């Protein structure tokens, strides 16, 4: 099969951290494939780095026709100015129609600065991307007003059309039989004027629990759990279901859970197979982060709790009686 030309195609920023491609990149490639088929153009994964890390197979299998590695020793770790220069150079050479980024702490720093350098539009935190019939413009849909409303944005007269996309929203497509992407290495000059920020130290935050975006089953607790201690009940149920625990913003604000557990507009968007909301009333900001879950169970004392409106199964009842019984019932299920 012949490749479409690299020019005027779809660019996906291949964000990497410590020798790993960030997961959202594969989700973006999956979406880019879909859009590229409609526009009849190619998909290019663009990476900035020192050349030590070569995830070409992975990027090919997830949908890249081309890979552009913009290379310079100064790009070994992410810094805003060198990376903006690297990507601007790739854009100059290939004139992409569309440029997609993960809405990560890197993408949300890099993409705005790049959009200003290129004098083009950028739409943040998209949850939907489609091609408009006729015009071929990218329709970028995102939550607005704290998730209260959806807005569809277009960038008609400037290119590339840039968007950041929230992790966990698009779906990966894997094709192990895909032909290898064609690699182009672009050596770029990074002037001293780009070295105005210096990294003195890098460290991980105390981590260790599984990311709530990766879990297939999430047991999520809110203010209605009553105390931090009661979250251990959720941990035990999560273990039985092979899942992990999550929480509402309220439970994070009180200090019962850490920020990495938070689902919602100011936390993370999740799409597990099963989401069990325990003592969560369901503020719009919370619903925005979980309503795409496969199967939603909500347990809440208050029959007026908005969470019951999005639940596939709603239990009006006290988490303090339901959860111990649920743990027991699940234990009985998994005995044999």
């Amino acid at each position, binding site marked *: 099969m012949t490749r479409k030309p690299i020019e005027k195609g779809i660019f996906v920023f291949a964000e990497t*951290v410590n020798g790993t491609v960030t997961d959202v990149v594969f989700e973006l490639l999956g979406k880019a494939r879909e859009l590229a088929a409609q526009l009849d153009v190619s998909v290019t994964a663009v990476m900035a780095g020192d050349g030590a890390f070569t995830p070409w197979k992975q990027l090919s299998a997830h949908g890249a026709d081309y890979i552009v590695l913009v290379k310079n020793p100064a790009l070994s770790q992410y810094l*805003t100015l060198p990376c903006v220069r690297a990507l601007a150079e790739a854009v100059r050479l290939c004139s992409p129609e569309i440029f997609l980024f993960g809405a*990560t*702490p890197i993408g*949300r*720093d890099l*993409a*705005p*600065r790049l*959009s*200003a*350098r290129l*004098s*083009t*539009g*950028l739409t*943040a935190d998209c949850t939907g991307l489609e091609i408009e019939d006729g015009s071929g413009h990218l329709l970028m849909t995102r*939550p*607005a*007003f704290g998730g*209260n*409303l*959806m*807005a*569809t*944005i*277009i*960038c008609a007269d*400037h290119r590339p059309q840039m968007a950041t996309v929230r992790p966990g929203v698009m779906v990966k497509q894997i094709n192990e039989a895909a032909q290898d992407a064609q690699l182009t290495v672009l050596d770029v000059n990074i002037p001293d004027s780009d070295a*105005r*920020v*210096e*990294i*003195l*130290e*890098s*460290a*991980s*935050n105390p981590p260790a629990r599984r990311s709530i975006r990766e879990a297939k089953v999430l047991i999520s607790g809110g203010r209605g759990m009553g105390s931090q201690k009661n979250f251990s009940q959720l941990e035990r149920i999560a273990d039985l279901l092979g899942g992990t625990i999550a929480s509402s913003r309220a439970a994070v604000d009180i200090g019962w859970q850490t*920020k990495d557990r938070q689902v919602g507009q100011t936390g993370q968007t999740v799409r597990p197979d*099963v989401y069990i909301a325990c003592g969560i009333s369901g503020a719009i*900001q919370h619903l925005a982060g979980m*309503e795409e879950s496969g*199967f*939603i*169970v909500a347990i809440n004392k208050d*029959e007026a709790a908005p969470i019951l409106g*999005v639940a*596939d*199964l709603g*239990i*009006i*009842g006290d988490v303090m*009686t*339901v959860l111990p*019984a*649920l743990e*027991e*019932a*699940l234990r009985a299920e998994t005995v044999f």
Partner: protein
Amino acid sequence: MKIIVCVKQVPDTTEIRLDPVNGTLIRDGIPSVMNPDDKAGLEQALRLRESVGGDVTVLSMGPPQAEVMLREALAMGADRAILLSGRAFAGSDTLATSSALAAAIRKLDYDLIITGRQAIDGDTAQVGPQIAEHLDIPNVSYAEQVTPIDGGIIVKRSFEDRYQIQRVMFPCLITALGELAHPRYMTPGAIFDAYRVHTIEQWSDGDIEADAKRLGLGGSPTRVKKSFPKSTKPAGVVTRAEGRQAADIIVAKLKERFLI
């Protein structure tokens, strides 16, 4: 240290409710507040001034009502407040907003610019880095901690699951996380002064060095094509149950769906 803090007046989105009948936004009676990340940035600026000296200017682009928020910034301790307002700025997207703010900042002296990471009405996190690009100064986003050094700052830059300690020399811009600094309360005396002693400087497009083509709707590459309430999915099953009975219903449903 000369510091400029960019602040935005936003509707308190946690107070917004949807009309249950037609799914539209009920905007009436929603209080306006200083954007929380911006307020944390202002607090950080005031602390830097208290530790090393200097002055703090707050700058906002918005309608005349934003004056109330700037008075609040003065009552917290800002030295000077500028409101950039006028028809020329109407319909601005983030790029046009950043162009206007950068053009206003060019008229001022500064070592450090602080913006909030993002505003709760738009949640884009774009305007800060874009201002830095227009001014050709370095930016550090997602600042969680700031320490002054001679001629610059040391910033703890958050990446959610990890962080970096970065050094950046002046002039530079940082975007503040809400966690950066817990805002102080206004004192009655300071509130009085904010209304009786200070004035809010009103600037229009004529007062800044901006290319008119880069402002307002005409300077905005993006347009809102449509906005709509979220689609609601068909209602699920809701039952009243406690203890064992509830557990059995949940387990049965999960089995039915082959989820356990």
